[in-house]
């Protein structure tokens, strides 16, 4: 009976932990297998512990090159989509213009459209314009599909902002530029940061649209896909684990800073 009561009391926690396990299990597998020493070309069965791949992460031909291309594209796509998306979000919330309603719904369309369809139509577009497929076409495509997500994230934040705060800033001798830099931007920052992170993640691991529009350029997801057919080097797991760790570090740093601030306040 005592056990049943204990179970009842902790049911939500248990369910939460199980779901978390379900979410994280794949990451655990990736990490464990980054220490594997496979016999053949495929890294699907556990053989023995080794740190070979960690000591030589770029030991596989072309892999680090593709990683660098992916990172570059992700950074530029994030910057481009965040700047444009933030401006669109402000325009949609703050200004009343004729096509506002239409823009508001059209901005969601790229999110709803199947990615394959968009990939194919982008390719058609680029080919018809005579564009050289490669880094730039990938970047243009990425900025495009990241935009909707940035707009959505920033818009939510801007909508909850009290316009009186900006009026108060103006009332306190801040000109338009000062008002934007000192009040509007800092208050909208969490929304903009969320949009930027989303854009980075989406761009970095995009495969379908990239694969259609890459020409001879190979991004990291394309490299993984390509190598999966011929054999999977352990280094892929090393990169995957490293990315995961970097993300975890970011989250932890954010939490520590947040906690410290809260303590200072109290």
């Amino acid at each position, binding site marked *: 009976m005592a056990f049943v009561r204990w179970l009842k009391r902790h049911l939500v926690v248990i369910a939460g932990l199980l779901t978390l396990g379900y979410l994280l299990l794949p990451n655990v597998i990736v990490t464990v297998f980054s220490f594997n020493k496979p016999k053949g070309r495929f890294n699907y069965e556990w053989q023995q512990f080794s740190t070979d791949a960690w000591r030589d992460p770029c030991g596989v031909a072309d892999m680090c090159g593709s990683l660098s291309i992916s990172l570059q594209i992700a950074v530029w796509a994030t910057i481009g989509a965040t700047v444009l998306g933030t401006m669109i979000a402000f325009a949609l919330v703050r200004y009343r213009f004729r096509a506002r309603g239409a823009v508001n719904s059209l901005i969601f369309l790229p999110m709803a459209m199947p990615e394959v369809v968009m990939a194919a139509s982008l390719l058609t577009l680029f080919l018809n314009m005579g564009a050289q497929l490669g880094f730039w076409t990938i970047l243009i495509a990425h900025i495009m599909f990241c935009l909707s997500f940035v707009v959505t994230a920033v818009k939510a934040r801007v909508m909850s902002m*009290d316009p009186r705060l900006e009026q108060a800033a103006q009332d306190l001798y801040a000109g338009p530029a000062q008002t934007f830099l000192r009040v509007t931007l800092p208050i909208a920052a969490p929304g903009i940061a969320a949009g930027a992170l989303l854009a980075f993640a989406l761009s970095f691991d995009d495969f379908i649209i990239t694969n259609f529009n890459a020409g001879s350029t190979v991004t990291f997801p394309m490299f993984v896909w390509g190598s999966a057919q011929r054999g999977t080097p352990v280094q892929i797991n090393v990169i995957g684990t490293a990315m995961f760790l970097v993300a975890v570090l970011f989250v932890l740093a954010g939490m520590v800073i947040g906690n410290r601030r809260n303590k200072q*306040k109290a």
Partner: protein
Amino acid sequence: MTNDSSGDVRLSGISKTYGAFTAVHPLDLTVPQGSFFALLGASGCGKTTTLRMIAGLEEPSSGTVFLGDQEVTNLPPYKRPVNTVFQSYALFPHLDIFENVAFGLRRRGIKSVKKQVEDMLELVQLGEQARKKPHQLSGGQQQRVAVARALINHPKVLLLDEPLGALDLKLRRQMQLELKRIQTEVGITFIHVTHDQEEAMTMADTVAVMNAGRVEQLGSPADLYENPNTTFVANFLGTSNLIEAAVDSKSGDDIVLQAGGGKLVLPQARCSAPTATGGKVLVGIRPEKISLTHADDAGEIPEGRNRITGKIADSSFIGVSTQYVIDSAVCPEFEVYSQNIDRDARLTPGADVVLHWSPAHTFGLDAAQDIDAGVETVEPEEGVAA
């Protein structure tokens, strides 16, 4: 208070229209330097719009705004020497209290702000809270930060937009006195927008009562209360009993009126309406000016007082006074507030009574107005732009 006029606020012919809707009809108003001025009215009467036009947050459709000798009609808010305490305060949530208060100084390029900010926080008794964020303070504290943030800039005029609206009653009373103290201490002109007539009367030297985009009457609180010029002012500031009466004759400085078979006397000087014989006027009397005597003692009432007979419909004892509702031929719900000095046990519902008062307390209004204008109904949710 100083006598130079460099801090006067002068509005001339200022108006604001939104499409077909006129929020503020052309308005002339002068607020003298150093005064505590209140714009009083129900929500939607144009008082906030007027305030925002002085701040520069709203562009007038016509007219000019002068601060002292300087015309500021076309200046953006950040170039006007006025500061605003916003409704719900609009404190910057990402800055601490110190930085909120320092904001205006920093924007004007003043480097050493520490001393000034600390002094200002002392003035509003928030020295301890300098490093907290706005959301960690109570409503009353946030309100004081908003005042400090505006006052630190030594504006020519401080504009207050329903600054106490979000506070509970007790705190509001406290802050009314606090604001009045600060205003006396710094001597800056305060223009205070409120829908609360008691608040306006407690704090302001001069009150402008606004209704439907117009100033109905302007004057000192006592003047407005004792001599209302319109039914709106009579009903909106406190309670008034209004009786429809016909002009019977004139005797010296008094007008004799006919109402429900009886005669009432009204001093000519206290009547804002035209008084041709046979014409109609509304006779007003405040509930606390009326004495109540049981019908059996009617003979003891001195001569020369205005009198009306009626029956007590309802009475409620509220400590300092008893409030009666009297049913009479001339007015179905006559309100009488009687001080609880010597309570007459016979004055219970159903008793026949005589109401009487000094003619000098009577006022006369134009009968062509809505007799119920300004009667307080259930206050709509505040926060809707007034």
